[in-house]
C-alpha cells in the first residue's frame, strides 16, 4: 500500500514533468477557418415544425366546422349516386375465376426454393461478417 502510494506520487510528478503534447501552431486558426467558411456547420439548429402553427389552427377549425355541420346542420343524405354505382355487381364478381392458370414445372419450383435458401444463407453470412468487422471490444 505504502509502495503503491509512493509509485502514484512518482508517476504523477513524472507525468506532470513532461507536460501535454502540442498540435501545430495554426491548429486553432485552421478550425476557425473551417467553421467560418462552411456555412453548413452550425451548432444552433433551430427546430422547425413540419406544419406551422397557423396551418394547425386552420386544420382544427376546418375539422370543427365539419363536425359542427354534421351534428347541428341536419345534412340530407342522398343515396341516388350510391344506387348508380351498381355495387351489387361486386357480390357476384369472382376474382379467382379470372386468374389464368400458369403451369409451373417441379424443376422451376425446386430452383426457386434453392435460390431462396442461398439468398437466406448469404444474408446470414454477410450479417455475421459485417457484425465482426464493425464491432469494437
Amino acid at each position, binding site marked *: 500500500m505504502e*509502495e*503503491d502510494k*509512493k*509509485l*502514484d506520487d*512518482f*508517476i*504523477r510528478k*513524472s*507525468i*506532470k*514533468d*513532461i507536460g*501535454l*503534447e*502540442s*498540435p*501545430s501552431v495554426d*491548429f*486553432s486558426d*485552421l*478550425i*476557425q477557418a*473551417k*467553421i*467560418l467558411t462552411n456555412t453548413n*456547420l*452550425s*451548432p*444552433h*439548429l433551430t427546430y422547425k415544425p413540419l406544419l406551422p402553427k397557423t396551418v394547425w389552427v386552420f386544420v382544427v377549425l376546418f375539422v370543427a366546422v365539419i363536425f359542427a355541420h354534421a351534428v347541428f346542420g341536419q345534412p340530407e343524405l342522398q343515396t341516388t349516386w350510391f344506387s348508380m354505382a351498381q355495387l351489387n355487381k361486386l357480390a357476384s364478381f369472382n376474382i379467382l375465376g379470372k386468374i389464368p392458370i400458369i403451369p409451373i414445372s417441379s424443376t422451376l419450383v425446386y430452383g426457386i426454393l434453392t435460390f431462396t435458401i442461398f439468398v437466406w444463407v448469404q444474408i446470414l453470412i454477410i450479417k455475421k461478417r459485417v457484425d465482426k468487422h*464493425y464491432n*469494437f471490444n
Partner: protein
Amino acid sequence: MNQPDDHYYIEAICKGDARAFVTLVDRYKHMVFTLAMKILKNNEEAEEVSQDVFIKVYNALHTFKGDSKFSTWLYKIAYYQSLDYLKRQKRNLHTSSINSDIEYHLSSVESALNGLEESERKLAIKRAIDKLPEDDAVVITLHYFEELSLKEIAEIMDIEANTVKVRLFRSRKRLAVFLKNELEPEILGTYGGR
C-alpha cells in the same frame, strides 16, 4: 483574472458567435491532441483526428445537455474518434506482454531519473509512456494530467469505474517497469559507482 467557464462560451456559440468556439479549442486542444497521440502514435494522424473532433463537437454542441462536464464529453468524443480512425485503418489496439509483477525498485528508478538532465529525463519518461498499450496510456493521461476521477474516466472510456481502478494500478506498474528498462544503464552505473 479568471476566464469565464465553458458554459459561458457554449451559450455564446449557440447564440451564433462562432468565434467563441476558438477559446474552447485553445483551452482543450493540447489534451485532445495528447489523447489522440496516445492512441494513434503518429503526429499527422493525431492532428487530423483532433481537428475532426473539434468540428464534430461544434456541430453537435446543441445536443450537449450539460449532464457531465464539457471536458468529459469532449474527451469521450476524442477517444472514440481516435478508435474509429484506428478501425478505418484496420489497426488494432495493442496489449502489453509486460508483466506488471516485475520488480522495478522505485528508489533506484527515481534516483536514476533525477540524475539525468531535464531534457533527457523528459525523453525517458515520454519513451516509457509511448511503450504503454494505448488504453493504459489514455488512463494514465486522463488521471495524472487532467486529474480526472475514476468515475469520469469510466464515463469517457465506457467501462466500469472498478475496471479503471485495476487498469490504472497495472498501468502505473507497467510504466515503472518501462522506465526501469529505459534507465537500465543509469541504474547499473549507480550500482557500479557504489
